[in-house]
């Protein structure tokens, strides 16, 4: 599509956000094209150009993940989920799954943290 001059349309597609980079396609590609890396590039371009993102939930999720990494140096699932849900104004859907995770001890209440906070700040200094 980009070669056909439809770059803007590509940047507005859901596909670039729905791709999770499982590498199933790139492993099968006889030309060894790194398709997930291409998707990364397109996501960055979409954000830089400021086009409307058709999958705001996925973008929010990524932002909340990085937010906890910036704060603690590691991800903190409970905080990611709470903030993600608050932003979406949808606290109660998936509550059952959250409880199931707590019951199975898959949702820690307190974050695990990096001691050398300065090193993490240096990595995130521009954001």
């Amino acid at each position: 599509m980009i070669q056909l001059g439809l770059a803007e349309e590509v940047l507005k597609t859901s596909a670039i956000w729905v791709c999770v980079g499982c590498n199933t396609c790139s492993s099968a590609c006889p030309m060894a094209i790194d398709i997930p890396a291409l998707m990364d590039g397109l996501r960055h371009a979409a954000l830089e150009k400021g086009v409307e993102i058709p999958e705001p939930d996925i973008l929010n999720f990524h932002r909340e993940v990085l937010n906890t990494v910036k704060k603690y140096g590691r991800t903190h699932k409970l905080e990611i989920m709470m903030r993600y849900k608050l932003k979406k104004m949808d606290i109660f859907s998936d509550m059952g799954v959250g409880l199931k995770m707590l019951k199975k001890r898959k949702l820690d209440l307190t974050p695990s943290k990096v001691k050398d906070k300065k090193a993490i700040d240096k990595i995130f200094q521009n954001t």
Partner: protein
Amino acid sequence: MTRSSRTPDSGLPADRLNFSFFPGCSLKASGHENTLSLLKFCESMDIELIELDDWNCCGSSSAHSIDKRSAKYLPMRNLSLAPRGIPLLIACPSCLLRLKSSFLSIKADPALRQDYEAFFGKPFDDELEIIHFFEIFNRVHLKDHREDLAGKLKGIRVAPYYGCMLFMPPGLRFEKSHAGIIEKSLKPLGAEIVYFGYAHRCCGTYLSVAKPDVARKVVNEIISKAMEAGAECLVTACSMCHLNLEIRCTLDNPIPVLHFSELLSLALGA
């Protein structure tokens, strides 16, 4: 082509195996049973794991998706913390991919090496060996190590589930593949391997949050196909897959999902 892991010598190593261990966020905070069983397994196999001091998140799927800077430096910092001379063992396929990609890029690109050395103030370790937990099974043969293990899993019908872990980006295509390692390790213990065609189907990973319907659909498909093929349990290689298979399954009576390390620890009586 540079490689990040060497081919091990055949047979048992003379010395005790020891590794520096990168748990990653999933194992540290949500895959407790994975970490615990892994530690127990290594303990009973006399393998020493030393947790990488003050490790940080590898950047996961989010950094490379939306933030180039942290996607570059987060995995690099972990490389800079790794002690010299002992292999770095990682049990999460996704962390492994991030750290290995970072390592190989620095090795191949002098400008990136300079960047790394300036940022972390130390020379880059070209010799660092980064391996997945599965690599242990290429170095130690369970039955040789513990003779009493034969038949411990006799009669259990296991469906191995690798998710996307065996699929590699082109930059890592010459790295060692761990295809078949679950089968190879469990068969001598008496387990019956069930082939069900969905062993490499992606679990939906983080779409479980923003698109639960998508995750639910693939998870149900994976588990029901394993059940149709006669499996009594699914064995996973990744704690993200494990999480999705457990929390997103809406089938009536699903078979249990176990981490590979859990099943091994059960067999070892650890």
